[in-house]
């Protein structure tokens, strides 16, 4: 009913019920908190880097189904990728959820995170979907402050 082409499709519900890579990493290279003050979504992202590669990435925290599933899908997409690739994926993701058109390469790069494309039709939820991504982006660019969506 609310599934199909909309926001709460099965794959999102699945990641919400069983989030992948959920739980802190021991000894992460960097750990950053992200916070959405409007609705209280609060996540912490842990990244283990070796040279230029994301060896491990995980998250924990509380939030809505959109923020949780987005974080989960993100960790699946980014694990094992190079930091520079992660940056491209982040740019593509941001374009997608704000409803902009993507080229072939960007669509490929997104992989499963494409399912969050429906968020672009719900401007009120864009911050939820992008919280984890903004947080990781901050973590990877060496910013140590708490990320907020404001």
């Amino acid at each position, binding site marked *: 009913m609310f599934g199909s082409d909309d*926001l709460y499709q099965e794959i999102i519900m699945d990641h919400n019920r069983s989030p992948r890579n959920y739980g802190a990493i021991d000894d992460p290279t960097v750990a950053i908190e992200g916070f959405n003050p409007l609705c*209280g979504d609060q996540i912490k992202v842990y990244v283990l880097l070796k040279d230029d590669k994301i060896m491990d990435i995980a998250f924990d925290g509380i939030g809505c189904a959109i923020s949780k599933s987005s974080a989960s899908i993100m960790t699946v997409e980014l694990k094992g990728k190079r930091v520079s690739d992660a940056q491209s994926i982040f740019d593509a993701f941001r374009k997608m959820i704000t409803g902009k058109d993507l080229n072939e390469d960007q669509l490929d790069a997104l992989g499963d995170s494409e399912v969050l494309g429906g968020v672009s039709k719900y401007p*009120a939820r864009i911050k939820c979907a992008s919280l984890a991504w903004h947080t990781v982006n901050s973590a990877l660019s060496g910013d140590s402050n708490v990320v907020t969506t404001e």
Partner: protein
Amino acid sequence: MLNVENIREDFPILTREVHGKPLVYLDNAATTQKPIQVIDSLVEYYKNYNSNVHRGVHLLSVEATDQFELAREKISTFINAKNSELIIWTRNASESLNLVAYMWGRKNIHSGDEILVTALEHHSNLIPWQELAKEKGAFLKIIPIDGDGCLDLEAYKEMLTSKTKLVSVIHVSNAIGTINPVENMIEMAHDVGAKFLLDGAQSVPHMPIDVQDLNCDFLVFSGHKMMGPTGIGVLYAKKELLDDMDPLYTGGEMVLEVTYENATWAPLPMKFEAGTPNIADAIGLGVAVDYLTNIGMDSIHDYEKSIAEYALKKFPVLEEKGVVLFGPKDPNLRGAIFSFHTPTIHPHDLGTIMDHMGIALRTGHHCAMPLVKSLGVPATARASLYAYNTYQEVDMLIDGLIEAIEYFENGS
């Protein structure tokens, strides 16, 4: 009993659809819809007699002034103020509260004084007092609530001392619906020589209010929460308080005589209304007051109480699904504002899903972050009713919630 179908016919917006479904507007604590009479009055003003008030001798100015001051009279009668000069136009309840903090508070609160507010306060009746207390070296104390969301009156009694200068209380909690026993509280405050400010934002629209009977020292409320336009609110205070307060906004309209060095203030209420006021919306609020008076505030109160009872009776069905309702379960102790938590669905998701069904709820902390936090949840979903909501809409809310919960539990 009020005729809800007749009332609904006056509200054009209630016929619209959202996401292809009929609108079920249950976000009245955030803002209310306007009857066509109010909407028309705004258009009529701008079409036929728009003019600046108070200073002109030409006919349009006289007409505008008459309607503007008539609106003030209407408000005065509506709350049974002694005199319409005690009705000060502001932007909204938040501004009214800040004006009391600035114009009365900074003059009358000193180091060591105590200000009491409740644990239920909206941020606008909390933060101005935090700031005032910090500035003056005064103490802000919070009257606690019990597990049902009702004020601990024993604690209130203990907290009232000779140091208490102001008690500022939300009449009806916008977050969880609790109705505070303010009649009693006002008397107790006066017994220790404290002033009492009543935040009527969620009560003035929904029940008869008589400021002389209540004997509150200040009353604040917002037009847009009572079928009136946005951008207009009221500050009422007793004459001796207004006479003692110095105006915050100075400038045109609020003066008697001005030299390059000095100015003297106009009498009430002009003393507190600098510059061109929000003429159209004040007139619009006057029309809203006419509309409400026509239905009867007693009728509105009775109707809302009965629809709240209906909703409360249905609640066990939701409780079975794990839904937690906050606030008093006794319909005599609460307004038609229902905040709840669905353990398996984050409020943000719930709000979006209900929106898909055409149902407008509000989710979050409802400008009461400390309160919601104390309930042990990150946020709540809130349904708040008004005189144009129907029993059928309550059914749709309940059914919609069950459908949402089942979807999140079992998938499509």
